[in-house]
């Protein structure tokens, strides 16, 4: 066991866990965040994605000992009363069926829009290509990212 101080969505949290514990379990079980999901544990599907210093990271394969930067999860973007433009856009486009992959889609889209505020559809597809969606909401997700980009521009 070792003590870690995590900076998550603007606040500081202390946890005592084994250094090799994947960040995902700390976020879900110690911090009780529902956003990041266990999908594969192999960095293959993207459901567990969070941002570390603004970059998308697969939290299921990220040991606590390697986490140095500021973490942002989907909870940090906004809540139902005060939605982030991406959350608003995903809801407006009804961009899911089951929604289990949605956390990763939103977080990677946030990183994309930070470095490329006006992406083409092709750039969005490329940025999200490492994320799996089984219900096949891909086209809606691309539309949602475009909608959010427009709103964030204005």
């Amino acid at each position, binding site marked *: 066991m070792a003590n870690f101080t995590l900076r998550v969505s603007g606040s500081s949290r202390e946890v005592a866990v084994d250094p090799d514990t994947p960040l995902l379990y700390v976020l879900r079980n110690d911090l009780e*965040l529902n956003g990041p999901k*266990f999908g594969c544990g192999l960095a293959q599907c993207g459901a567990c994605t969070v941002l570390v210093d603004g970059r998308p990271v697969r939290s299921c394969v990220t040991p606590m000992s390697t986490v140095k930067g500021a973490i942002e999860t*989907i909870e940090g973007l906004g809540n139902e009363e005060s939605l982030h433009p991406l959350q608003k856009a995903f809801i407006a486009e009804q961009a899911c069926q089951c929604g289990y992959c949605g956390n990763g889609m939103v977080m990677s889209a946030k990183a994309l829009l930070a470095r490329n505020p006006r992406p083409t559809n092709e750039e969005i597809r490329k940025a999200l290509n490492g994320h799996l969606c089984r219900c096949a909401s891909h086209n809606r997700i691309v539309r949602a990212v475009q909608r959010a980009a427009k709103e964030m521009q204005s």
Partner: protein
Amino acid sequence: MTSRRDFLKAGGALVLFFSLENSLGQTAPARLPGSLNTNRMLNAWLRIDADGTVTIYTGKIELGQGIGTALAQIAADELDVEMKRIRMVHGDTAVTPNEGQTAGSLSVETSGTAVRFACAEAREMLLAVAATRLGTQDLKVVDGTINGTLDYWTLAGEIDLKKEASGTAKPKAPSEHKWVGKSIARHDIPKKFTGGAAYVQDIRLPGMVFGRLVRPPSPGAQLVSVNEESVRKLPGVVAVVRDGNFLAVAAEREEQAIKARAALARNAVWKETPTLPPSGAALYDHMVAQGVPAQTMLDKTGTAEAAARSLEARYTRPFQAHGSIGPSCAVAQWTDGKLRVWTHSQGVYPLRNDLANVFGVDVKDIRCTHAEGAGCYGHNGADDVALDAALVARATGGRPVKLQWMREEEFMWEPYGSAMVMKLAGGLDAQGNIVSWTHEVWSHPHSRRPGQSKGSHTLAARFLDKPVGAAPVGDVPLPSGGADRNSIPGYDFPNVKVLKHFIVDSPLRTSALRTLGGYGNVFALESFMDELAAAAGVDPVEFRLRHMKDPRARAVIEAAAKRAGWTPAARGWGFGYARYKNLGCYCAVAAEVAVDRSSGKVTVNRAVSAVDVGQTVNPDGVVNQIEGGLIQSASWTLKEAVSYDRTRVKTRSWAEYPILRFEEVPPVEVVILNQPDQPFLGVGEGSQGPAAAAIANAIASATGARLRDLPFTPQRVKAALSQTKAM
């Protein structure tokens, strides 16, 4: 339970008597609409409270298909209330009606119809009280307020919903609908994009521990030895469970459970035996060679010219996985001999039945409550993991257990969609019309769901020291069918023969994957239509219309062709049509593909679908289902097959089971042919079969190569191209 069919088999004069009266000689109750027929009390379906809310209880569960919102739309319209007043309660054996499985694209048809008639009757009852109070029949309801003076919330106490539905209440005319027919935003979505507690994975109970499994390495493996003690000493371990071939751990923390699982797996010694069938092309010969006798499902003879030309073709479909993005998960807790389970099962009552059979307890002592999981697309590991969690929870001293499968367990142990062989034969007369048609299908079962009277179909039941088996399954009977779903063509052919070889034993467990046999059968049927059209020298759309009388079928075929800009000369386009189950929605798909001749890679560039679901409740929900089904089918069709050798399943992760990705997903357009005056028809499984055929037919159109073996991997396409002269 003795089915009506068994009575008919019994034969004799008693048949009529028994079909009209039950065994006590009482007249059978009148048939009520939808699921009201099996859950007949009004208060089973709704409750109106003084606080200005309406609660709707449904046995159908939300699995991301939007059923909660669609049912709320129906209820709001029949009751004349705003949707925000409606609270939905899904699938809980303590509080909701028993509507069996949420399957077969039946939820709007059965539950929606029940909610519609129950709410219409409740409204009539409220208005009857209001009429007396106000001394007028001239009543107008606005959001539950009657003539601006009385309201439902104060009158609720004066009506008694604890009575059997009459089934004679008059639902609203479509022109009076305020909510039905509109794309109301789904209620389940906001929490899914804000980190709300949306899934069974998000349940956290006081004292909860985490469970993980050690499954056998292969379906035929037997546990020889395992050192449980060494694992019990690991940090955080609360329990190590061994019962026959069932092995599991529970720990205080999730990562500790995962480490304990790995340690237990390392020291477990198994004896493995090769129990699996051959794979690849040999599988299909093996299925046919088993010699399971054919059942004749249809033998229709009519008058027609003799065939001038005959064609035959064999199509195959491999074992395919549901591949939920989130592995199956459940939470279970035992308290004083009573079991509580939170589950994403599609049927909480059937699951409860199986758990009772495994544990030997009364169903009254088990409560199963639905909580959403990741999309399941049929019978995945949801029920199995509920038993797993309950088995582990017996060893945790009353502490609740949350157990989620690892990715490899999901891929190795979910019940697959069955491999299938479809042999088709057809005859054309001199004018190029189909005069004879034969469809012969070989398949394992497509439904091994919980809910049998004895035993259990849950996976771990068979692993136990005292294994609990299940009776051999039968096929889902026609007209909806299972292995033979959609094997009977909807076209008007004078002579039709449909044969089924139902291979009950399957060493690889199979059960319901979205569409059951419909995907394989429609792929074959609609591919063969194109093969015959080509032989007749007729455009595929024209050829379909020539053989189709049903006006609703013709309408979707024409609408899809029109939206696609279909022309007989267009290369690279393909068409497919089916009415799902021959009972559900009508759906046509046109797809355009590009084939890279050097790599063999097929890209779907564009897809168009037209669909008739009867009365449309939520147009965006319909589009979402048709589009999602179409793209999922493109993934099945181009990429997916479970791999295995004679002993082990080799598919363990997404690396071995690639699915369609963003850069491969085509734009999809959906045209809805709304029929406001027609009954609801389920939509969730409408597009998969037609999409597969459309892609196969488009490849043939683009290259001249006919692909008959799913999936159309680059390797297969290249092999087919090499046998076809460059066009």
